C-alpha cells in the first residue's frame, strides 16, 4: 500500500512539509522522529557538527530500511531525510516520518528505522568543540555483506 522515500540533502529540514508529504487521506496519524545536534557529547561542549555521507549509497540504504519497516509492520508511507553539511546546535540532522493507519505499528516501525540508520547507513560526523578542535565521532561498525 504505502511507499518509501529517502533523501540526503544539504538544506535545513522542514518538519511540516515532511509530515504532510507522508500522510495520505486514509491515515489517522503520523509519527515523526526528529534528530537534532545537541550541545555536548561525552562531556565536551559541542558548537557544531559536520555531517558527511556516501550519498548515493546512503539513500539506497535508507530506502531499504524504510521498505523493511513498511513490509514488517504494514505502515503507510515512510519518509527518511538525512541532512549533510555543517549544522549548528538545535538543527535537525534526520527526520523519519511514518504514516500510521495503526498507531502501535507506527511506533515499532519508526524505532526500527532510527536504530537501523545508526547501524547501517554510511554517514559520518565530525564535531567542533568550544575549544576549537574537530574530531570524527566514533561510530558503529556495519555488518559486512
Amino acid at each position, binding site marked *: 500500500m504505502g511507499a518509501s522515500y529517502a533523501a540526503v540533502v544539504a538544506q535545513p529540514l522542514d518538519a511540516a512539509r515532511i509530515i504532510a508529504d507522508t500522510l495520505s487521506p486514509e491515515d489517522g496519524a503520523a509519527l515523526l522522529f526528529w534528530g537534532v545536534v545537541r550541545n555536548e557529547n561525552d562531556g565536551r561542549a559541542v558548537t557544531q557538527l559536520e555531517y558527511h555521507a556516501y550519498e548515493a*549509497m546512503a539513500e539506497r540504504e535508507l530506502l531499504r530500511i524504510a521498505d523493511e519497516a513498511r513490509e514488517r509492520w504494514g505502515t503507510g508511507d515512510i519518509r527518511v531525510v538525512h541532512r549533510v553539511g555543517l549544522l549548528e546546535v538545535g538543527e535537525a540532522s534526520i527526520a523519519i516520518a511514518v504514516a500510521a493507519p495503526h498507531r502501535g505499528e507506527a511506533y515499532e516501525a519508526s524505532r526500527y528505522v532510527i536504530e537501523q540508520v545508526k547501524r547501517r547507513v*554510511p554517514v*559520518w560526523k565530525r564535531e567542533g568543540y568550544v575549544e576549537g578542535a574537530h574530531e570524527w565521532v566514533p561510530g558503529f561498525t556495519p555488518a559486512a*555483506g
Partner: protein
Amino acid sequence: MIVRTLFFATYRDLAGTDELAVELPAGARVADLVRQLRAGGTALSSLPETPVVAVNMDYAPAATALRDGDEVALIPPVAGG
C-alpha cells in the same frame, strides 16, 4: 582491472583523497585490494586488516570477487542519525 576506490571520514584522512583508481590483477577480491592499499607505504597502512567494504553500494565480505569498473567504498564505523 581497475576499481574505483572511495574513502570517507577517517579513511579519507588517511588516504588524503576522496578516491583512488586502483589497478588489481584479474580475479582479485576485496581482501586483495585492502592488502594492496595497506602495503603501499602510505598512511593507508593504518587501515584495519578487514575494514567494512561496500561493492557497488552493497556491503560485501572480504572474499567478494571484484570486476573491472567496480566502485569499492571503504566504510569506517558509521555515525548517522
